[in-house]
């Protein structure tokens, strides 16, 4: 283990000692559902341990005093919301758009039936 590796090892030890696990298998399951990514049991286990480690690390933000500070919503100084006139313009032609669609029918994107037919 080189010097950087050792430094990282110590850091991880520190996280493990300090951090309370934030997530449990139920939350992970819920998150995969919310983000619509199916995951195998093995994937969920590894996600649980990775995410807990990362969340353990970001815990350090709790030591920062942010009293009175506004949340950062714009990055570029002086930037304001940009509006434009609501005018019709040339957007994507239908055939260009549909060329990328996995399936299409009669000029529309096709998906498996949503309502079961009897």
């Amino acid at each position, binding site marked *: 283990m080189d010097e950087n590796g050792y430094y990282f090892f110590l850091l991880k030890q520190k996280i493990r000692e300090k951090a309370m696990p934030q997530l449990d298998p139920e939350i992970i399951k819920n998150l995969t559902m919310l983000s619509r990514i199916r995951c195998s049991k093995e994937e969920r286990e590894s996600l649980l341990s990775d995410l807990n480690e990362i969340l353990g690390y970001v815990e350090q933000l709790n030591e920062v005093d*942010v009293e009175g500070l506004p949340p950062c919503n714009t990055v570029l100084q002086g930037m304001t919301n940009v509006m434009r006139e609501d005018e019709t313009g040339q957007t994507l032609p239908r055939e260009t758009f549909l060329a990328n669609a996995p399936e299409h029918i009669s000029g529309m994107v096709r998906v498996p039936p949503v309502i079961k037919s009897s």
Partner: protein
Amino acid sequence: MSIHTLSAYELHKSFCKGELKAEQIIQAYLDRIERYNKDVGAFLRTFDEKALSQAKALDEKFARGEKVGRLAGVPIALKDNMHIKGELSTCGSKFLTNFNAPFDATVTRLLENEDAIILGKTNLDEFAMGSSTEMSALAQTHNPWDLSYSPGGSSGGSAAAVAARLCPIALGSDTGGSIRQPASFCGVCGYKPTYGRVSRFGLVAFGSSLDQIGPFATTTQDVAMVMEVLGQHCEKDSTSCTDPSYDFLSSIGTDIKGLKVGVPRHFIKGLKGEAKACFDKSLETLQDLGAELVDVDLEVLKYSIAIYYILATAEASTNLARFDGVRYGVRSESAQTLDDVYDLSKQEGFGPEVKRRILLGTFVLSAGYQDAYYKKAQKVRTLLIRKYQEAFKKCDVVATPVTPDSAFKSGSIKDPLEMYFEDMYTIGVNLAGLPGISVPAGFINGGKPYGLQIVGPQKADVAVCQTAYAFEKATACADKIPEQFKK
């Protein structure tokens, strides 16, 4: 004279004098890609026929005596997350292996308007999420200085392509260091402009408040030349900077006597060994050039990784929700229901790092946790921006290392959090929307390149390039070519 040893600036001048034909230049680079790309893995695909026919047309235009563009005779590569109409934009993901861009990115249009010729698209970590390019689902990219080492990432393909002289200029995108870190690893210049300076229209979004497109090149002069073309207001990007384009080329040659360079000594105290020695020497070089070093307090930067992995993942989770397998991308063949289309297409299409970040982003935005994570991180980001503003009252630019060390061996970093630490010196720049450059500073650890990072206040893009230009002239390690790719 070998074409590949010339800078983009020199290529353009030679073309304009009639010394080199565009077709000659393009053919020379296509030949090099054909010969070397199998070793480097920088390009995912090239546009040989199209590039050659554009070159021929440009030669004819020149022969007719018509005015040619500011990038005439310059071949360029794009990271594969920027759109070229009718060409694949894979983002290094299995999910987009069949996606043909329906329109041009603004950068594509600006480059082509100035007669640049796009050679091909380069490899990246999937959706630009990573620091090694190992997360690409499509190819492995190697560091031209030692093929068993990582080129860095996420724009590793673009960095490696320029380092091996497979093109003189390549564009990358930088959300947390994805241009500067690979530039440092590969011994080339990598520039991340002020947030909003280059239009993001047609760049596949990852973290919208952080993403910025910028160039890789072998010299700062080339960076300046490309930035004059790319740094334009664009009405298709609502975060686009409305300033007129900056005058880079005529300004970068100004000397840096009396320039105040801030050094956040406390924040970078962890730097060790040859990396530290190289950085200290870089500071001496800046002093020799007449710059004055001042200490600045940027200890707040120690929180940048924590802030970033909350905000960037939150933004990624919303941005990547669009890849649902319904309208474009690879739809799972086993999908029986509409829910299957979403769930399985994402399961099969996304790699582990992308899933990790989407889930983390979904968590920090979810009801009950949003205040503790997302809003908290947004507030610390405000603090970080303010600390930078205070620092820039004391200095004109800030100098830091780009990375904790030179390139690591491919496959040697397995832990996701450890990989995130690669960006500890670069992320703050994105969080504050600042311009930053990685300029080659020397070779350490047995001939591995190592970069110096120069950071300026927002919109001080020219000052950053000017400092880098003076530094580069004094160190002369930017024009070094890896032994294997010299001929």
